[in-house]
């Protein structure tokens, strides 16, 4: 499968290269990243505490401009991130970009198709290794188990940029749904679930403001999403629905030699469902978290990173004590939270080539999987580590 995906990407690359030479309206780019990674005392990435090569990201994207109003853009990727997300290839985005309005001070674009979610600081390119501040993004917001659903959706998105006397405003709105693979249902719910989770709708809005010629940028985003469980004939879950409401606040400050960024979130999660064992689920809880990240540019080619990331699954139960009483079976308390300290360094050692390395120390396991179904929890000790080194090339 991996060989097939790599061959597919290389073939596409050659085809695009030959087309691009002949056509000025086609532009294409790509990236290739391979690393070594390990999760120690946790199955977040690897199962056996050993270093693994399961840190592969290969992608190719292309944009064809039909005229000054319409373009078509898409990206195909192959990913292997160990247990972090589904291994394999996927179309990250494929949308028609209609420039509804384009003036010097105001632009509005409508995206139709598999649009890319752009609502958080790093979400526009979270799938592109060299654009991320670290190999693994802060899990409070950029939860890897949710990667495909968070990255793009099928539907419509509108984005507008306005430059005025008060500064630059970006407004984004989107409405769509994300297809979920069957194995993702098992990951979200339980390995015993035979049916499928379907996302009914995801509705998002965000706005970012940067004062004129200021180094501050602030933003807010809202998300509302509903899911329905479609049971199989023989299944442990007879029916089920869930809903997520999320509020995110973002801030970034850029200085000459350093950059500070932070995003805070509040998630309201509701689950309802009936199980064959006679258990009825009706849960309503609000999680909170966020990260603060500091990057220092030691030189033109070397960047250091320090980040604190935290997430509490239930703000009414920050130490996870109530997980003992979980209706589907007791869950260890340290699955009620997750705190992570990350230290990283990146070195751009040649043109369009980077070597990144990072270490994270984690306390708790609340962001490894859905903390609801005891048999779908990803195994972890109360304290655990991750190590990653990754080579990146882009063009």
């Amino acid at each position: 499968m991996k060989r097939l995906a790599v061959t597919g990407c290389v073939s596409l690359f050659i085809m695009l290269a030959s087309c691009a030479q002949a056509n000025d309206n086609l532009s294409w780019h790509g990236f290739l990243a391979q690393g070594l990674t390990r999760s120690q005392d946790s199955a977040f990435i690897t199962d056996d505490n050993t270093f693994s090569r399961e840190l592969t990201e290969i992608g190719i994207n292309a944009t064809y401009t039909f005229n000054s109003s319409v373009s078509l853009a898409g990206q195909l990727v192959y990913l292997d991130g160990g247990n972090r997300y589904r291994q394999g290839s996927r179309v990250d985005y494929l949308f028609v970009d209609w420039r509804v309005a384009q003036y010097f001070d105001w632009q509005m674009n409508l995206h139709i198709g598999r649009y890319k979610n752009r609502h958080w600081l790093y979400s526009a390119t979270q799938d592109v290794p060299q654009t991320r501040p670290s190999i693994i993004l802060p899990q409070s917001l950029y939860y890897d188990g949710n990667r495909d659903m968070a990255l793009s959706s099928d539907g419509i998105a509108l984005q507008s940029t306005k430059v005025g006397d008060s500064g630059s405003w970006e407004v984004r709105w989107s409405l769509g749904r994300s297809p979920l693979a069957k194995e993702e249902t098992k990951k979200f719910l339980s390995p015993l679930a035979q049916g499928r989770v379907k996302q009914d709708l995801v509705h998002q809005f965000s706005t970012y403001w940067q004062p004129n010629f200021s180094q501050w940028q602030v933003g807010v985003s809202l998300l509302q999403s509903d899911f329905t469980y479609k049971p199989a004939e023989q299944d442990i879950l007879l029916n089920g629905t869930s809903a997520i409401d999320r509020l995110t606040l973002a801030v970034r400050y850029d200085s000459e030699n350093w950059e500070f960024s932070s995003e805070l979130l509040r998630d309201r999660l509701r689950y309802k469902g009936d199980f064959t064992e006679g258990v009825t689920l009706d849960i309503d809880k609000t999680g909170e978290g966020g990260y603060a990240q500091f990057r220092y540019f030691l030189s033109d080619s070397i960047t250091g990173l320090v980040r604190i990331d935290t997430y509490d699954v239930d703000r009414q139960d920050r130490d996870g004590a109530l997980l003992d009483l979980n209706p589907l079976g007791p869950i260890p308390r340290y699955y009620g939270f997750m705190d992570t300290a990350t230290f990283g360094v990146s070195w751009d050692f040649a043109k369009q080539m980077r070597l990144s390395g990072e270490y994270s120390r984690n306390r708790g396991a609340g962001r490894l999987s859905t903390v609801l179904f005891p048999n779908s929890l990803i195994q972890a000790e109360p304290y655990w580590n991750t190590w990653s080194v990754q080579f990146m090339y882009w063009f």
Partner: protein
Amino acid sequence: MQSGISRALLFILFVLVSGPIKAAEAAIHILANESVNTHTLSPAQVRLIFAGRTQFWPNGERVKVFVLKASEPIHTEFCRNVLQIYPYQLERIWQRITYSGQGDAPVIVNSIEDMVAKVAATPGSIGYYNLDGAPPEGTYILNIGERE
């Protein structure tokens, strides 16, 4: 001890809230191909163009941007004094646009002479230069001022 911490916090606060990068009188000019036919742009408009966010001119022609390598002092000066952002911020914006299907990053050229030649030869193009004398044939200096 406490006053030391307070002073450190005040210093950090000062650094964080101190104003934008100070604009200086730049000897760098914006150079445009004669087909562009726009004579004045506001500083914010110039920034949108060099950031790759404005992809087409009002006449429907594609905007083509030429810049020097990020390590070139003239590029750094252009970013700081004309665009009033740091080169790494510009690169971050380009990456975001390029890798999310929103457009193309500027074309990087090797020298100012190369930039001038490319702007002269490419319809819809824009770049910058700091050479003395009148702009070469096929180009003109685009003014930065009040919005058109």
